[in-house]
């Protein structure tokens, strides 16, 4: 996968590292146009139409998961997150009408960094399906941006949720690649 050359430049990395490390509440970054257009198209082609299986625990979540993890080389992020990383295994998730993730204590205690690649082609926040992270009084809302990579630093109090997707979504689906890097 080819990453947008701007994110490989040293000055960009320095700036992003600074932004990520100085955000005190819920450190996070959303990098738009993260992959080159061709690479992003390839990712979409691979994940938008693959087979997904439905998973539902009504008190926790309702979504579909893709077949197998996909490795993406994100060594470029090592300096930003201050941890050496290379091939990261991403799981693919799809959310459609009536699906959601609720806040729950089971997502707590997973200290580290979440990485989210948004493959959704067209999404309106009026459909619901908005991804949020909370930590005490602080909440960050992550709107859908196709071809974005989001990094969120989690501590033992961080919880995430994805709001219920309403009937205006019709047949639209949110497709996300999600990975977690655990703190060493």
């Amino acid at each position: 996968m080819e990453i947008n050359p701007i994110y490989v430049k040293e000055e960009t990395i320095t700036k992003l590292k600074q932004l990520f490390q100085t955000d005190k509440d819920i450190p996070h970054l959303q990098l738009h146009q993260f992959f080159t257009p061709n690479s992003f198209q390839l990712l979409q082609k691979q994940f938008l139409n693959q087979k997904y299986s439905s998973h539902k625990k009504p008190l926790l979540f309702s979504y579909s998961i893709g077949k197998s993890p996909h490795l993406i080389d994100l060594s470029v992020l090592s300096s930003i997150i201050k941890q050496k990383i290379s091939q990261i295994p991403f799981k693919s998730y799809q959310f459609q009408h009536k699906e959601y993730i609720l806040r729950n204590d089971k997502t707590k205690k997973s200290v580290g960094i979440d990485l989210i690649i948004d493959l959704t082609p067209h999404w309106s926040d009026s459909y619901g399906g908005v991804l949020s992270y909370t930590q005490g009084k602080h909440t960050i809302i992550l709107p859908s941006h196709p071809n974005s990579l989001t990094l969120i630093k989690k501590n033992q109090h961080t919880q995430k949720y994805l709001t219920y997707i309403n009937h205006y979504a019709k047949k639209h689906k949110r497709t996300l690649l999600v990975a977690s890097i655990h703190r060493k």
Partner: protein
Amino acid sequence: MSTVSQWLNFSSLHPSILKTLQIKLHKKKPFPHLIIPHFLPEEKALSLLQALTQEHFELKESDLFTLYQTKDFISSKNKILRQFRSMLCSTEFLSPLEAITNLKLKIHTLDIAGTIYTDTNYLLPHDDQLDNRKIAFIYYLSTLKKSDGGALAFYQSKNHEPTTIVKRTQPTFNTFLLFPVTSTSFHQVEEVLTNTQRIAISGWFHGN
């Protein structure tokens, strides 16, 4: 003075009727519940609806729900709403309710508020267990067709976890629905799909 006889279609229930309701409640699947149509005389239901629509409804949003809600009627300036609350938590009303449910209830203690669910509003699965809640109730003041959504859906459960929806009840004007709050009383309000408002009064009876 707000007595049960001033409000309800039945002032006193014969023990045999109480027994029938008790059997009916406990027979219902996936968990005990009771649906009482024509709960109030029509004019009382309409006056309650009119009083409720004068109240301020605040948008409540979380990961679990999006809906509009009033403050608890205990602090309402509206006499009709306060009287309805008093009636529901009076000894006259609680005694037959205790007989039907086999639960000991706390007199003059009730959580009660108005709710409106409109297009896209919902309440996701939960069991209502909190504090001393013993019985959950909902009194519908509007009617929704199946195509409007807004059904109250009941879950079957396994090992105290909800599995699948096995019963749906569409809101019907002047219908009172109640169920004991237990570790298996998993339910949800399904998304409202049109501009028809799902108007109701709901809350919980408490135990000691």
